């Protein structure tokens, strides 16, 4: 197996369909792994492994939609492309709402499937880089002292140093020092940049009078 090939998990209870899909994906340059049921997939899938999931909707036991819901609850980032032999609108709406990349009807067109997989690859890549960036920011955030963090929250809320000093019961000069340290630790040059990073990590502006919101818990 080529390490560079992109992994595609295929789940379908029909062995002939499963085999044909795997074969097609292999011919198209992917690394397909087939499962005949959702349960089998769950037993063998290692979370965090890169790849996407091509999933049959109606299967005995756990259905495609149920698997999607389950993964969603676990916040699994794997992108899902649904295949169905009997596409009805409520099902497709439910699937798309659940964050599916696409909802394709059988027999599935080559172009549709491949473009859906490309989309999944792209999405996953984005998600991964977002995740990496968030990780980096979080790492920097973790270097802040509690006081610096407080200052940061007030800064991104657009308050002036004087206001912050008043709020925190200190002098403006001290806030200025804190603020410079925060900028330095977070590796930003401008206030706008700091605000963007903070937003991405979920640190929102603190409204005057309200207590500062707790930082986001790290992802599971």
């Amino acid at each position, binding site marked *: 197996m080529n390490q560079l090939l992109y992994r595609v998990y295929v789940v379908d209870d029909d062995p002939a369909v499963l085999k*044909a*899909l795997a*074969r*097609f994906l292999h011919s198209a340059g992917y690394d397909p792994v087939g499962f005949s049921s959702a349960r089998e997939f769950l037993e063998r899938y290692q979370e965090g492994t890169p790849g996407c999931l091509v999933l049959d909707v109606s299967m005995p036991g756990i259905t495609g939609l149920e698997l999607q819901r389950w993964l969603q609850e676990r916040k699994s980032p794997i992108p899902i492309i649904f*295949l169905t*032999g009997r596409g009805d609108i409520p099902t497709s709406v439910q699937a798309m709402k659940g964050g599916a990349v696409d909802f394709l009807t059988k027999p*599935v067109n080559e172009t549709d499937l491949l473009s859906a997989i490309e989309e999944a690859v792209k999405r996953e890549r984005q998600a991964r880089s977002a995740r990496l960036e968030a990780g980096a920011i979080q790492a920097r955030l973790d270097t802040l002292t509690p006081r610096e963090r407080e200052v940061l929250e007030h800064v991104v809320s657009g308050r002036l140093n004087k206001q912050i000093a008043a709020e925190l019961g200190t002098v403006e000069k001290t806030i200025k020092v804190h603020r410079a340290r925060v900028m330095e630790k977070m590796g930003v040059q401008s206030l706008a940049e700091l605000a963007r990073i903070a937003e991405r990590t979920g640190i929102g502006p603190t409204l005057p009078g309200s207590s500062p919101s707790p930082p986001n818990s790290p992802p599971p």
Partner: protein
Amino acid sequence: MVKFLCSTALNGFLGSALSRRREPVHCFQQMRGSIGKKVGRSSVKRMLIFFSSLGGLLLSFTCFAAATAPPKRVLLLYSFGRNYWPYAIVSSTFQTELAQQFKEPIEFHEASLEAAGFTGSESDEPVVAYLQALFAGREPDLVVPCGGPAVRFVLRQRARLLPTAPLLLAAMEARHLQGFTLDTNTTAVSVTFDLPGIVQSVMQLRPDTTNMVVVLGNSPLEHFWKAEIQREFEPFTNRTSFTWLDQLSLVEMRERVSHLPPRSVIVFLGVHVDAAGVPYEENQALTAIHAVANAPMVGMFDEELGLGIVGGPLLSLAEDGRETVVAAIRILNGESPANIHTPPEVPGNPVYDWRELKRWRIRESQLPPRSEVRFRTPNFAAQYRWRILGVAALCLLEAALIIALVRELRRRRQTEQSLRVSQERMNLAAGAAELSIWEWDLLTDQIWASGPTASRLRSSEAGQSDYSRFVHSVHPGDRDAVTQAVAKATNGGGDYETVHRAIMPDGQMRWVAARGRVEFDGKHKPLRMRGVSLDITARKEADNRLQESERRFLLLANSAPVLIWAAGPDKLCNFFNEPWLKFTGRRLEQELGNGWTEGVHPDDLAGCVNGYTEAFDARSPFTLEYRLRRHDGQYRWVSDHGVPRYDAQKNFLGYIGSCVDITERKQAEADLQETRRELAHVSRVSTLGELAGSLAHELNQPLTAILSNAQAAQRYLNSAPVNLEEVREILKDVVAEDRRAGEVIIRMRAMLKKGGVQMAPQDLNDLIGEVVTLMRSELVVRKVLVEMKLEPNLPLVRGDRIQLQQVLLNLIINACDAMTDNEVADRRLSVQTELAEPGQVQVTVLDRGPGFAPAALECMYQPFCSTKPNGLGMGLAICRSIITAHAGRLSVANNNGRGVTARFTLEIYREARP
């Protein structure tokens, strides 16, 4: 006690009184010119008398000896006594043959040791003393000890007793010589017992023998032999047990052998002295045992055969005796005994007693090869052939005589009988006053008559000639015919015959049949006419009644609104009524016989004719349905019902039958069936409509596989190098998937088709499998789990595949519908097949739904009764009509707990399974 016997045999005479069995009388002469003397079979007592006359014999010997050389002196030394079995055979043969064959006179001396001297003790002494005294100064020319004890005695006392006499050891078993070295003046003629051979022989005759009973005496010699026999029988003790009777008296032995357990065989080895000390001479013991034995007996010696032993390999003692004679003559002629070597005699080929074989049911095929069977008794027929023939001839002669006499008697009786009968008949005829005899003298015109004719003529008016009176008595309507018949007869025809009505004096009319013959003279002038008249009024009336009955039948048959036919016992039709002829538009002649079959529709002809023939041969009523061509060419269905006819005497007369036109009924039936089929089809289509989504999915699966496979193949073909193996695999899968899609389509099309009903043997398990496959996707979507409990050895049923599938489909969909509101885990339905009552297969579909409401239960088989929002209400009604048309039963009922059980049964297909 020691007993001595001494005798001398003279030239010309030796009575071998001891020769005991084969030749009841011995007679021989020695030396020409001597006087022969017969000695009959003797008992021991007679022998004593014989020996007491010894003196006289010696005297005659002396006289003879004066003229010639002195006789040779031969001493015979017996172990027990001269009459003891089995030495007596040897010694008597020896004496007889030696006296015959040796050219010089011989003087025989005999001495007996009785039971003494076997082991060697002081009991030898008196014998030694006696013999020393007897032969002092002149030893015998030959000493012949007979038997083991005598031989041992002589060898022990050789030096003291007979230092120079030649010794010929005789009548003993070879093992008696063990421990002795024979000097140069000694030779032996011995026998060898084959003791294991006896047991083997028994095993061959009676392989199932488990008990061998050894009959043996209790003397010192027999003690010796018991030890020898026990040793040699030892290897056989794992196959059979040995019972020893040597500790019993002969009386006790007889008691024992008469109550032996089954599978016993007696081995008779001889009893010289029994345990009670009683000695037995000759064959006393053997015959005594044989008389009461309840098991077969075997022995060792040829001479015992015929006395009760079955047989086996036997030793001939007579032969041993002859061998001894040969040796004796050579010694007496001066040859050194050391030069004489006689090999021990061994048992010869097996010999059997036919009577004993028969008695113990031993087949001759069991005997060993080269066996000889003696004492064959010719069977009764052969034995008394001429006597039987004579008696038979006599019987035959007598039988013939008796038969002849009986015949004669019967013939006479028959003659008497027939005479009596004919007289009785005449009386009867006269008594009934039906037969008249008459004679008309034409020359005098006088008529003499008896019976009714007489009274008929007498009462006529006077003055008229007899002939005119006669004519007057004839009914006017018949007069011309009668007078013409008379004229024809008298004018040369000679024969007169009429049937006419006569008016009797009381005015009654009677039918009369008359017949007469005219006698003519030489010139052909009629002289007289004689004849008889018979009153046939009763017959005539019966005829009329019959005609009337027939007329009535015809009227009835022709006016009935059905087609009626009749056939004779030969199956050929001999009657068709007018409605039949009108219906077919054919003439009676065309229909008679088998002509009517021309109107039967060719497709129905074979069935019709077969049904007719089979019923006819069985004489059973039948109903056949077939198409019959109407006069307008249209074939009409008729139902033909025939029954056999018999006369009053139960004689079979043929068949009579009637047909009715049932075309309308047939059409109605066909219409009904068509309607039912249409309805079933509509229901099927609507059911399949419900499954449309699932069926699309079932088709989509193989199509998906095909498409993906094909696209993969395209890509592989564009890559380099092309992986042809992979492509080949892909194409194989494509073909398989295409076939799968095709099957789905075929199955669907079959269900959608509005075909006719095709009854054929069906495997319900297969049908269930197909239906469940067809519904697979539907079941997945509905999350219903199907549990199948199918009887693996389910017999076939007869039915229409599509219709039965329709029923199953309906029942399963119903079951699924019923469980829509169940928890997913509880949506389980079970499909079972099993053998129900004898000859029935049962299919059960069980759901876990809420069951039917009571109102629904009441109308569930009615059309348009539905519990479903979109239901047509036809499902169960159609299922039930289908199953009923298959001669089965469908029932639907609520379960005790919850859910519904739908169940149908079908009859097992009767013909042999392929």
